[in-house]
């Protein structure tokens, strides 16, 4: 049985905590560990914060749609927005994970987290919308070093 969460939020950073609550409730309702809710919420936060902060050329209110399907084995996620075209997975720089404290650049980690924690990530542009699709499997190999 597939269970779905569909939610739309406005392009306002304060909306992220409302999205996070809905994701927490959904993950609890399908009977999955709250660790997954944490991972999903960090990824949504990183991607949608980018969109809200840098994606729009006007000061108007925009809607961002988040859809999550859970089929018992994986979460299949789609994020849709009408911000400027931007392939977040292609156009974001690789973060520096090695420099000493004082040389370590501030920022650039958000998209890295998404790539690290999701099993698949993709982007496409269609009919004036950005679509980011993600998949998170319940059972996946552990990350090296964690």
């Amino acid at each position: 049985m597939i269970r779905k969460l569909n939610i739309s939020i406005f392009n306002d950073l304060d909306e992220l905590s409302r999205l996070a609550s809905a994701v927490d409730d959904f993950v609890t309702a399908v009977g999955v560990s709250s660790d997954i809710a944490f991972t999903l919420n960090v990824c949504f936060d990183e991607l949608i914060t980018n969109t809200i902060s840098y994606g729009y050329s006007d000061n108007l209110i925009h809607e961002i749609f988040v859809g999550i399907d859970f089929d018992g084995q994986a979460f299949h996620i789609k994020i849709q927005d009408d911000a400027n075209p931007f392939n977040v997975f292609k156009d974001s720089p690789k973060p520096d994970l090695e420099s000493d404290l004082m040389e370590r650049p501030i920022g650039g980690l958000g998209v890295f987290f998404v790539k690290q924690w999701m099993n698949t990530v993709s982007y496409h542009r269609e009919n004036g919308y950005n679509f980011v699709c993600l998949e998170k499997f319940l059972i996946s190999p552990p990350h090296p070093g964690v």
Partner: protein
Amino acid sequence: MALIQEAVNEITIAIPKQRVDSANARQFEQDLLDVIKNKAKKVLVDFRDIDYISSAGLRVILLSAKTAKATGVPFALCSMKDKIKEVFVVSGFAKILSIHPSREIAIQAMSSN
């Protein structure tokens, strides 16, 4: 977000609340930098209440650690839940910051230097 503060010996302990996300990171940054710049001798950030941190929160921690180092203030973190610790490990921050398992261990470590 009110940053609760306690003091033990010469250590100012800052205790942020529950969520550090992009919506409240700016306030967190201001509060934590205030603690570091306002005559604290040593600063410990106690993560016991933190259930959520995104890269916006990590950015504040990195900036604070740099500011503390530049001003000669020892700076450490303690009491992270497993999920939060993972964020610090994946980001490579665990290698460049002092992270202690508990407040007691952190205070002991910071008092001896």
